[in-house]
């Protein structure tokens, strides 16, 4: 069984939909999560606070320093992610389609590196 990260993508600086719309989206996303759980595909999922809440810890002149984030500046942001188990990409895409319908945003499907035993 492979593992995939499904990332919820949105353009940076886009405004949040009105509260009742957000509520509807949240309940749709919850329903997909429950479906993943009962199918035994769900591993973990979570929503991310905005990029402005990020902190970066890094090497600088031989020291480890802490600075204000985010580290990755891009036109697109990740609003949340789900890690799931799936036999192949087609199976992962089927879940991604459900998630995309629920979140109304693009979903990036990316495999995790498999451990060689």
């Amino acid at each position, binding site marked *: 069984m492979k593992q995939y990260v499904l990332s919820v993508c949105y353009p940076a600086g886009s405004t949040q939909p009105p509260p009742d719309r957000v509520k509807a989206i949240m309940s749709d996303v919850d329903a997909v999560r429950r479906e993943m759980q009962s199918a035994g595909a769900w591993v973990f999922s979570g929503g991310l606070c905005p990029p402005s809440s990020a902190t970066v810890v890094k090497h600088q002149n031989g020291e480890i320093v802490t600075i204000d984030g985010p580290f990755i500046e891009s036109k697109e942001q990740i609003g949340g992610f789900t890690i799931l188990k799936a*036999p*192949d990409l*087609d199976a992962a895409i089927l879940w991604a389609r459900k998630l995309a319908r629920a979140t109304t945003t693009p979903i990036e499907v990316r495999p995790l590196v498999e451990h060689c035993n």
Partner: protein
Amino acid sequence: MQEAFATALARWPTSGIPPSPAGWLITTARNKALDRLRRESTRAEREHAGQVLIEHEEIEEHDVRDNHLRLIFTCCHPALACESQVALTLRLLGGLTTDEIGRAFLTPVPTIAQRISRAKGKISDAGIPYRVPEAAELPARLHTVLMVVYLIFNEGYIASSGDQLVRPDLCDEAIRLGRQLAELLPEESEVIGLVALMLLIDARRTAREAGRSFVRLADQDRNLWDQLQIEEGRYLLRICLERNRPGPYQLQAAINAVHCDARTAADTDWHQILVLYDHLMGIAPSPVVALNRAVVVAELEGAERALRLVDAIELPHYHLFHAVRADLLSRLGRFPDAASAYRIAIDQCANQMERDFLVQQYRSLNRGATSDS
């Protein structure tokens, strides 16, 4: 099998083990054997090769077909970039070498090699399955496969760049892939429709070139059309149309069949073609279809009406859009407007022979305009 193993090893240099190594190996072995079968010239050699195939691998015909089909759907998986789908399909199903693919697409060989190895890496890393999609997914997935085959054909028929108008090897390869697909999926009308479409268009191949010049459909010597191929196209078209599940490829094949029916350009049944285009716009509307439809309207209702339709189409980066506009404008005697439209068309046209043709049209336009004034 040994040969296949060596190929497989060479094919997976950096990307690790393929998702189903056994499957890939067996398929590669079969493809090699089939390639050999195809290439052996004498009958005795073919029979011998056939026996070798059967004795050594005990492969049933059914399995070979099944593997071929799986490979097609893997190569044309929508998670792969279009250019990778094309390169992989030509390499693994068409049996073209990386060199041949590079030459056919005027792309440096290392670029093609990189494209293929990246695609294989993705197939392996992302876990793109090696199987025929389930019934529910089949139409959407088949759509991609047919698009890849037609793209290969089109690149062969009107090379998007370079000084050669036609690349017959790509046309032949696309038709061969189409036939193979039709054999594997006999129930899919659009597959047969695509084969019919390619045969009917390709039948006019020889007539499209005179010396080193491009010849328009209307000006072609129809005696040069390959009647045998037209017959086959018509026959296939009848088979799928009788099933009454029309699709874009079948309709385009039907349009081409009407062209092929006309003994002279003047005999063309434009009414029937317009009906078919209306139908096509109904099920698969696109600006390119709208442009082609407008050309038909010009034949039936005149250039002015057609120009109004063309001006409502958004295709600013398509050279044929400007070429059609230029032609309509010149028919209406609006020579300066026609000239500037030709200039844009010439500018955007990457195929040398097609561009020569447009330049010639542009020049005769200038002559016409000067003699008028």
